[in-house]
């Protein structure tokens, strides 16, 4: 099953800014290249893009949580 993993270490965010809705929720469809979150690394926000198409079945990374390179962010079906 396709997965979305973090490209970098840092802090994971599910929304573009505090108070805004998440980029994607469980059950949402994603296409290749769709942004599903941000990783804040060295004061820079890097977009996390899906490299597969499908429907999000689970998020494994919490909003505002530390994340390591290669850590699982979301699963697709």
């Amino acid at each position, binding site marked *: 099953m396709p997965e979305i993993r973090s490209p*970098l*270490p*840092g*802090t994971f965010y599910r929304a573009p800014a505090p108070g805004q809705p998440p980029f994607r929720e469980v059950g949402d469809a994603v296409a290749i290249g769709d942004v599903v979150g941000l990783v804040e*690394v*060295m*004061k*820079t926000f*890097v977009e996390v893009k899906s490299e597969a198409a499908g429907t999000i079945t689970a998020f494994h990374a919490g909003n505002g949580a530390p994340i390591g390179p290669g850590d699982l962010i979301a699963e697709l079906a």
Partner: protein
Amino acid sequence: MKGPAGRTLFIANRGEIAVRINRAGKALGMTVVQGHSAADADSLAVRMADRAVLLGPPPAAQSYLNIPAVVAAAKASGADAVHPGYGFLSENAGFAAAVEAAGMIFVGPRPETIAMMGDKAAALAAARDAGVPTVPGSGGRVDPNDAAAVAAGIGYPVMIKAAAGGGGRGIRVARDAAELARLAPQAAAEAEAAFGDGGLYLERMIEHARHVEVQVLGDGVRAIHLGERECSLQRRRQKVWEEAPAPGLSPATRARIGAVSVALAERVGYRGAGTLEYLYDAGADAFHFIEMNTRIQVEHPVTEAVTGVDLVQAMIRIAFGGPLPDPAPARGWAIEVRINAEDPARGFLPSPGTITGLHVPPDVRFDTMLYPGYTVPPWYDSLVGKLIVQGDDRAQALARLRAALDGLRVEGVRTTIPLHRALVRDPDVVAGAVDTRFLEAWLAAGPNLEPYLEPPA
């Protein structure tokens, strides 16, 4: 007041500047206590310190930016003085006041000075009062019916800005009265829609501006300047390369920019090390004050190289009531390039990671917190080192920089070394013919910035 020797200095910062402050404190005979986050327990600054105190978890908001935690840690460590470095809490008037309220010395200006110079309108007013040129403008909201007369007085081209705006949004440029008449109503309508306030003000657009800044030291009454720096090579408003002195300034302009900087520093009773930033219009040989930074700057080493003054030691001495230095005239030329853990070939993507190899060529200054085996954490700024060279003149400094960059190796993470290897060979950079927009345009042209590009024979 007795001097710093035998006293305790608390460093409320991290990275290369913490290492730099540690060395200055030790050279002055001080005991050094390093405040650090959980992510920096194995940092070089912690290893070099006499003692280290945990401030909090890795995120800066919970450690290096947590005023109660930093003040409590410093006080509990028995510190006599707190050095804030740059960034983090260095220009936070509330932090400076809290340090003083806890009975410690803040190595920097008085809290009121930090607050005033941090307020853009107050800083510009202080500058005008001291006779420092600022960017010509309407000095506030302009009545649409008076705009043409005001613009004629400022001189074209003018920027039309929303009084309620910020961040460059909605700025229009008018090159003559006809354009102003056409664009001002558009700008007012857009400002009304965006901010609920259609108020406008006008400011002269300085085309091809260079960034020139002046280093000052003050003792709270008197001030001196230590010459200027050129910092026009910037990406996203971040400096990447700095020089002292600034290329092409006439002796008269150099004397005048230094004199007005001292006048402003003395007018505000400046204490410690500070920098006045100017836009320099080379075509008109005119400079305009934009802001003052009330802290030590990243690029201070180039001034140290040409003046022989250790600025970090000087600001600590001043904080303990010591006198201003009395330097000999500046001589020679110095260049600093910032080495960031970013990949210039991939849009400057941050590149944290473990340092597997480090080779620094001899006879250059390399201010860094790196050591082999150190892991650059993802939590903080990407600056990992500053390479500083000097020569008798600019040509010699450039030649030494070119050689030093060819010898510098930072392995394990991507760095901006390839950017600087390319810049040091660029004809416009070599000629000193750059303005603040040069680097962005240069990067947009897609230069080859792959790592460890071997230089052409």
